[in-house]
């Protein structure tokens, strides 16, 4: 009993203390603060970690917050693919966790149910060198109101075996599609084929395929949200991918999300697209063979196509505060706390580059220099485009992505079921069901 009263007083005092600067040094970029509600407690739902230290550090930071503010925070983890349905249910029934850390266009599916985070996002943006453009796109409505707070993107980059790429005659990893095809053909010839998922492998197949689609100038919709997938550029991309897929190891049409990790670590493939998890798993493995694979592993950004700029797609994660929450200010203060350099940088370091930052200033996180193999992941958010490109985020973009329209288009052409033209026409027909 006494404890509770004391905690409340301490909480109130610290809130008072942090409030001070807001009034007195408003113009200076000092500590902004949202005054947490009295007796606030928070429930946070986030995706289950891909690498253990991520979760440990997240919880440690959360504990620091609880101690500083006297606000208990309960953190729940869900498999990353299950966060979307849970968040949707919470939004629909108007009850659930105060904060949900979700994915991609989640906030754009129920924008009216979310607390406006504009002041918080502006504060963080000003303090940390601004948001990368794609992070801003994901976080804001068309009118520029912030409804999600980007946490970062889980980058999927080209993961390759250095020695085999050298053996194939490339001292430097290629940066354009022509050289890249030559590399893949040489790798295949040497008996070390590349392997990329052509299947419904959530999180894997969409990312590398969009790089090629966009790289050649193809896109699902134009900037007016009109379906534009059936274009000469798309057909070029499909034809390129048909050639490329001939070099893949057999059976990638049936791969799941972990197939490429296993195949790579077992030395069956020389090149794939993945997050940093393969390298991490190899480096921390007790198996000497896998350790050796990790030592020979390196990463490269996705190819830059004829459009002449990076066209990467990654899984961006962002936090949302729901209007049904009784403690929106405490939730915002929690997010502010977690996104501040003192907490964010150690957390990012702990997650070993699995999450690339959305705020420019975190380019300077010292962690990036710990291992040169991390470096390609540094610019992931800077190089990425929203999956709704060139249109806006919303129901249609979510539906097209979930319905595998782009993946099926490429896969049906690569698996010999359709010609490039037929595949593009089919994708157009399917996309029109959602874009109207």
């Amino acid at each position, binding site marked *: 009993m006494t404890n509770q009263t004391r905690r409340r007083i301490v909480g109130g005092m610290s809130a008072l203390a942090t409030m001070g600067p807001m009034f007195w040094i408003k113009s200076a970029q000092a500590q902004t603060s949202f005054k947490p509600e009295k007796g606030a407690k928070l429930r946070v739902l986030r995706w289950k970690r891909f690498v253990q230290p991520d979760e440990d550090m997240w919880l440690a930071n959360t504990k620091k917050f609880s101690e500083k503010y006297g606000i208990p925070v309960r953190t729940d983890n869900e498999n990353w693919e299950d966060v979307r*349905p849970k968040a949707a249910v919470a939004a629909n029934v108007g009850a659930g966790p105060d904060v949900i850390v979700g994915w991609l266009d989640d906030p754009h599916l129920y924008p009216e149910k979310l607390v406006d985070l504009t002041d918080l996002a502006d504060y963080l943006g000003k303090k940390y060198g601004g948001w990368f453009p794609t992070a801003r796109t994901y976080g804001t409505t068309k009118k520029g109101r912030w409804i999600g707070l980007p946490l970062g993107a889980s980058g999927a980059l080209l993961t390759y075996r250095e020695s085999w790429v050298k053996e194939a005659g490339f001292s430097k990893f290629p940066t354009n599609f022509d050289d890249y095809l030559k590399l893949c053909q040489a790798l295949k010839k040497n008996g070390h084929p590349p392997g990329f998922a052509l*299947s*419904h492998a959530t999180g894997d197949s969409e990312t590398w395929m969009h790089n090629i689609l966009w790289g050649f100038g193809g896109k699902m919709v134009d900037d007016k949200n009109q379906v534009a997938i059936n274009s000469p550029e798309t057909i070029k991309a499909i034809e390129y991918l048909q050639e490329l897929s001939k070099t893949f*190891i057999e059976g990638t*049409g049936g791969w799941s999300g972990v197939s490429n990790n296993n195949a790579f670590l077992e030395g069956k493939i020389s090149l794939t697209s993945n997050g940093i998890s393969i390298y991490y798993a190899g480096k921390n493995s007790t198996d000497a063979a896998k350790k050796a694979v990790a030592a020979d592993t390196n990463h490269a950004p996705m190819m830059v196509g004829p459009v002449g700029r990076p066209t990467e797609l990654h899984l961006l994660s962002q936090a949302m505060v729901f209007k049904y929450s009784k403690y929106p200010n405490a939730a915002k203060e929690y997010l502010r706390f977690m996104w501040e350099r003192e907490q964010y940088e150690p957390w990012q370091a702990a997650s070993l580059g699995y999450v690339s930052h959305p705020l420019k200033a975190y380019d300077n996180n010292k962690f990036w220099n710990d291992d040169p193999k991390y470096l390609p992941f540094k610019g992931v958010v800077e190089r990425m485009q929203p999956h709704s490109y060139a249109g806006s985020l919303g129901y249609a973009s979510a539906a097209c*992505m*979930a319905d595998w329209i782009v993946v099926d288009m490429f*896969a049906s052409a690569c*698996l010999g079921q359709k010609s490039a033209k037929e595949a593009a026409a089919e994708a157009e027909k399917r996309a029109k069901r959602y874009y109207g």
Partner: protein
Amino acid sequence: MAKSSSQSLLDRFNNSANALGLVFMLPAAAILLVFLTYPLGLGLWLGLTDTKIGRPGVFIGLENYRSLFNDSVFWLSVFNTIGYTAVASVFKFVLGLILALLLNQNIALKSFMRAIILLPWIVPTTLSAIAFWWMYDSQFSIISWVLVKAGLIDHYIDFLGDRWNARISVVVANIWRGIPFVAISLLAGLQTISPSLYEAATIDGATPWQRFRFITYPLLTPIIAIVMTFSVLFTFTDFQLIYVITRGGPVNATHLMATLSFQRAIPGGQLAEGAAIAMAMVPFLIAAILISFFGLQRRAWQQGSKD
């Protein structure tokens, strides 16, 4: 006066089979209403609206169904579901019946055999699906590995990357999982058949086939009708096996109506469309139930005579 009349009312109520029956049925009816009728009605309603995740919808009539009618993926899923159900059910019936007949013989360790036969049915579907997924892996498949080591094939089988291979693979997994249910249920049916019938037939010089054809099969028919109705319903609404093994891939070759409904409703956010797909399954399910219902009505079967 008043008291005695109210008492007699209570007495009459207590002695009325109809009134009591109604009251005793109420709890069950309430459960059915809350947990079956309401969700079904809600699904039906959702399918007629444009509801999305996080946004209530308005009534749009049959627009979802019209849109699905022009959707090649939807029709592919209908084709897949019917094929998956038909092939898997036939195999489950034939293999289940053979297994039941075997288990009905006097074999060694009879009780033990009957117990372990149930294992595939008891193991959570997700776990058995993961096991199958490993067996079907394109690089690490134990099946391919054994065949390659035995020198029977020279490269690994593409179980899940080729559309027909993938379809066969998931059907096999479903059959493996469904056989125990059919076998054990039919075994229960077999044990209700009086041995004296077989003795009489044997004395009359009936062959084993004749005994099966004219005693076992006719007497087992009502059980077969029920078991196969359930088996067809389970198979038609299968979700987990597909979701774990292929996610409907490659290029939707193994998408069932149930998995497509989920994919569109939840990850895709199109709740109404998902509900419409789920509703489109109902006519098929009702047809399966009616077939068995009318089959059961023909009670003459039970006497083994022609109706």
